[in-house]
């Protein structure tokens, strides 16, 4: 059962028809529908290409938020072995919006940290829709310290609408927690690699995505504010999210040009959710490349290169 986005409605109709035909044929052996069905397949493939070859920024936001898009837990299952989750901030609580722990990547130990949004109503609520509370950042800080002490590379998988606008989160020092987490990302003398796998929402994303190398999946987004939020403030109309998404330049392609993103990971046609394994293996390939580039660097080099990178950001804008 595929979940279609609003702009994929024509595609849903064609693909629906093709699978209906095939279902009919299974019940009725005399029917030969294959010619007709594969014509529909071709039509669908053509439409899919047309839709995805030039996704608007707002459509990319929709794809980035797609319910079937692989999440942090999926990547950990697919790419890592011996994953051993570690919990708690040693202060207040364990935040289920952030997962992390020790794992092996290509048999080498690493620390992996990421936002997890959940996959159904129950797990989404438990994961707070991937919106971390202060304890989540503090858990990440603790894990980054652990990685630093033992010389393990840090891999973060970013997928969050943003920090959680809640009362408790503020009471427990959300700002301080994000600040410390960003600070920790910049301090550690081990490679830090970040992949924006879905949504890179504001400070909640920066807290984990301040890295030696930041990769973004082709249809992921990374922004100072959600298009809806920006639209309601600057346009005074939340419905102007398409315009805001356009203006914010939040796509992987724009961020690559601005130097915020170092590398774009191609997604399967129709988005990562259409061929999850292909997408996840592509991320694995990028992690491998980055690790081989960064592992030879000394701790001091890693820190200083990371800083240089951030100090240099903003020296060029986008073409008009």
């Amino acid at each position, binding site marked *: 059962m595929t979940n279609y986005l609003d702009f994929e409605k024509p595609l849903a109709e064609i693909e629906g028809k093709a699978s209906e035909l095939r279902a009919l044929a299974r019940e009725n052996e005399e029917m030969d529908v294959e010619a007709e069905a594969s014509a529909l397949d071709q039509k669908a493939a053509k439409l899919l290409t047309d839709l995805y070859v030039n996704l608007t920024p707002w459509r990319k936001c929709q794809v980035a938020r797609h319910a079937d898009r692989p999440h942090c837990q999926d990547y950990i299952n697919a790419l890592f072995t011996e994953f051993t989750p570690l919990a708690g901030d040693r202060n207040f609580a364990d935040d289920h919006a952030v997962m992390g722990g020790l794992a092996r990547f290509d048999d080498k130990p690493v620390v992996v940290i990421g936002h997890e949004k959940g996959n159904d109503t129950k797990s989404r609520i438990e994961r707070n829709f991937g919106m971390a509370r202060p304890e989540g950042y503090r858990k990440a800080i603790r894990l980054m310290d652990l990685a630093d002490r033992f010389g393990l590379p840090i891999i973060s998988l970013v997928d969050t609408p943003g920090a959680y606008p809640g009362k408790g989160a503020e009471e427990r020092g959300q700002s301080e927690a994000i*600040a410390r987490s960003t*600070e920790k990302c910049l301090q550690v003398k081990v490679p830090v690699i970040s992949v924006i796998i879905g949504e890179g929402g504001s*400070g909640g994303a920066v807290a984990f995505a301040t890295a030696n190398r930041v990769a973004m999946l082709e249809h992921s987004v990374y922004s100072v504010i959600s298009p809806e939020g920006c639209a309601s403030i600057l346009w005074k109309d939340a419905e102007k999210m398409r315009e805001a998404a356009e203006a914010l330049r939040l796509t992987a392609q724009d961020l690559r040009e601005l130097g915020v993103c170092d590398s774009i990971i191609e997604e399967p046609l129709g988005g990562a959710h259409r061929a999850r394994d292909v997408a996840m293996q592509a991320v694995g390939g990028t992690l491998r490349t980055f690790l081989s580039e960064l592992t030879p660097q000394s701790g001091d080099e890693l820190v200083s290169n990371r800083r240089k990178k951030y100090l240099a950001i903003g020296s060029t804008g*986008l073409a008009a």
Partner: protein
Amino acid sequence: MNWISNYVRPKINSLFSRREVPENLWTKCDNCGQMLFHRELSNNLNVCTNCNHHMPITPRDRFTALFDGGIFTEVAVPRPIDDPLKFRDQKKYPDRLKAAQKQTGEQEAMLVAEGEMGRTPIVAAAQDFSFMAGSMGMYVGNAIIAAAERAVELKRPLILFSAAGGARMQEGILSLMQMPRTTVAVQMLKEAGLPYIVVLTHPTTGGVTASYAMLGDVHIAEPNALICFAGPRVIEQTIRETLPEGFQRAEYLLDHGMLDRVTSRTEMRDELITITRMLMQQPPPVIADLPAPAEIESGAEVADLDPPSEPEKA
């Protein structure tokens, strides 16, 4: 990378540059309604003499009150590229900037200066809420980096007065990137072993709070300042609950462990002198007012102002 590369020798701020206030104007306190004589209010640093309500103060006025004799030297801030995203909402970003410049008479939302405070050499940076809500864009990022680099160069503490509505949306992701960039600035100070003191003023919100404003060695806030990441209205809409009285105000944050102190603006300078001198292992400050500095010819050498108490340069 040298942020001071386009450094121009700054002019000494005139001792007598304090804006003249018309004698017979009155301001109504927006908290208690008291009519306050304009000069009385400005002499009290825009704090209501009746109810202690803290009204906004410009960075320039704040520095005039902070530095000995009102003398400070501006630290040059490298200008960022213009309008990197070619951003346009209901207005073009460059037009919004121009309007803010015209309205405030300042170039941008942060002022950086060096000078002495109670004969204690410092670098200070102050954010200007009246300039596009003090929003943190590339200029503010550059200003904080310039302030930190200057502090490290001079081996002085950095005192930063924060005030911001958050990130500058018109610079998009590049404004968000000021969070790590300013964090690098704070790290420079920490590695140099120099105190970094943040004075959080009303309001300090959003990405600013979530970066350099929350990374100080000492956090002091002005009374009743709103300090938060997500603002109260956003939270109320999200959780559909009414927030308690004083939520996210300075005193509340003090209760919740985020601040070291809440201090009235009129006592802030003395307190900053006391704290920075202890952290710098300098002798106790001179109590009572310093004698007014000798009259300075405009164009006098900055070096003439160096105090006998300046610490040894290693």
